[in-house]
């Protein structure tokens, strides 16, 4: 694990400092041969207590930072770890192959699956190559092409969501980013195969929802799901982008909030400190959750799956009903 300060969040610092200290003592132990295991154990216990303390008190804004953590595992990291075998397929057959929206086939246990997902880049070059995980119309259309393929072959679909937002460049507007997302929302509601959506990091607004209409929607513990980034909400509603912490709170963007609001079905726990502290463990937990939901859905027919998905989203939203007073003038 590199320790470039750019890759460390403020609240991670005390932990990483402790770990650096532990590592140094271990190194000295190895070099000098003196037994300092008691010291190490004490430090490790201190570290564990500190982590438990820090990570049980994360604010929604802290989770936003974790969801966007530069070391956070991205879609392809999970694809590689969760599938026994996988293959990427490319192109929307209309305009381009969007690198920010990837997809393909994969084998997970005894499930032959189709997967799609937004892909962020790790370093500067890769981030640009992946357009920072913001898909263009061609990305959403590619995802839909692949989902239709799954439907043709009666294979379940896994959507891995991790995007700050859909691309809103001039080109994206020209090629109908609105149309592409809208069509996905409509078509996904009719798919006659199981659709499982997993929100891995940033569930950014329409860009996330564009591959987010599932029979089951699950969410990693530190992922966020929001109609607008906290910064945007602060700028528009509070007229002050610096009030993002307050906005993150008000928008109820954490996995726990999403669960309470009925927008997702399950929160998948992350290792203490976040998914990036143990990618394998996170992937394993995710895989198990996915397989469990797949098995549950396997009893439904195609039309039942479409109907369940329709009803699920049809019932989202909260409003009141005024008792209508009889008007008989």
């Amino acid at each position, binding site marked *: 694990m590199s320790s470039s300060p750019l890759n460390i969040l403020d609240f991670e610092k005390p932990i990483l400092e402790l770990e650096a200290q532990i590592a140094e003592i271990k190194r000295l132990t190895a070099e000098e041969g003196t037994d300092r295991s008691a010291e190490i154990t004490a430090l490790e216990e201190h570290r564990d207590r500190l982590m438990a303390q820090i990570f049980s008190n994360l604010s929604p804004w802290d989770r936003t930072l974790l969801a966007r953590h530069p070391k956070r595992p991205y879609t392809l990291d999970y694809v590689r770890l969760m599938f026994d075998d996988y293959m990427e397929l490319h192109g929307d057959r209309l305009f381009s192959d969007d690198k920010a929206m990837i997809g393909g086939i994969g084998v997970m246990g005894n499930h032959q699956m189709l997967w799609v997902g937004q892909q962020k880049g790790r370093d500067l070059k890769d981030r640009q190559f992946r357009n920072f995980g913001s898909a263009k119309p061609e990305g959403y259309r590619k995802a839909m092409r692949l989902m239709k393929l799954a439907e043709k072959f009666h294979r379940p679909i896994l959507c891995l969501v991790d995007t700050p937002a859909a691309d809103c460049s001039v080109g994206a*507007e020209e090629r109908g980013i609105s*149309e592409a997302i809208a069509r996905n929302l409509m078509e996904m*509601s009719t798919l006659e195969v199981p659709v499982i959506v997993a929100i891995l990091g940033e569930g950014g607004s*329409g860009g996330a929802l564009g591959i987010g209409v599932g029979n089951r929607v699950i969410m990693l513990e530190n992922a966020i799901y929001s109609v607008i980034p906290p910064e945007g909400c602060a700028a528009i509603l509070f007229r002050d982008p610096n009030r993002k912490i307050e906005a993150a709170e008000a928008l109820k*963007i954490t996995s726990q909030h999403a669960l309470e609001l009925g927008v997702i079905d399950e929160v998948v726990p992350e290792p203490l400190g976040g998914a990036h502290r143990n990618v394998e463990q996170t992937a394993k937990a995710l895989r198990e959750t996915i397989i469990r939901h797949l098995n549950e859905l396997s009893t439904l027919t195609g039309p039942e799956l479409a109907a369940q998905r329709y009803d699920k989203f049809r019932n989202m939203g*909260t*409003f009141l009903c*005024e008792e209508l*007073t009889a*008007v008989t003038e």
Partner: protein
Amino acid sequence: MANTGWFGRKSKNARKIARQTVDALPDGLWTKCPKCNEILFNKELEKNLRVCGKCNYHFKLSAYDRLVFTVDDGSFEEFATELRTANPLNFPKYEAKLAEYREKSGLDESMVVGRAKLAEIPIVIGVAEFGFLGASMGSVYGEKVTRAMETAVAEKKPLIMFCSSGGARMHEGILSLMQMAKTSAAVARMNQAGLPYICVLTDPTTAGVHASFASLGDVIIAEPGALIGFAGARVATQAGLINRPPNFQTSEFQLEHGMIDMIVPRREMKSTLTKLLQFGYREAANVI
């Protein structure tokens, strides 16, 4: 454009409609065109369906004015009027905001839906009210659009949606986002039933509404010069877009890029809708 009780039922709602129709006239005798600065007499302007006679600027219409200008006299019957906005997130100051706009607009929310007739053809119709919190889509807006579509399916009627929206209702957070999925799924049901669904995009139609049911019409019409696009005006400006064409995110831009079927000036809207309904409707009713 008389407000002499042509609405189907004299409910609390009908009274509100009447009030709205009166309120829609700006105070005083004249209005200045925001595009060409021409001074327009309100009576003239109203006769001209609130379009500037000089530069063709289409003034925004309130939902009820739109209905008056569009459907057959006396045919509109609103439904889903019992829906009231909640504050599921306990979002700060949301209730106060709602109260303010209720007072200001005389409406309960930013979407009006109902049954009506257009050129004798029974339809379901929805109209967004930009005057209510920028026609932002929250749970009630989404629910009303969805009910309009479900009513169309149940009664085998075409649906016309006059769309407008500044975006999602942020105060309802992720629940407002879900209205995109909900309304789009409802369009799929209209398609399965073979029923015509016509969208009219009015100024402005952006963000979550544009990226859901407003882009899914069998035919999509825009009023001239409307702002139409994915990124709301603020986002688009912030993004510092390069190579931004002069007509970016207008009706004309959308037509050029194949996203809408046509731009129709307000005075031709009713006859255009009639022809489209005649193309899509009659046989559909027989077939289902």
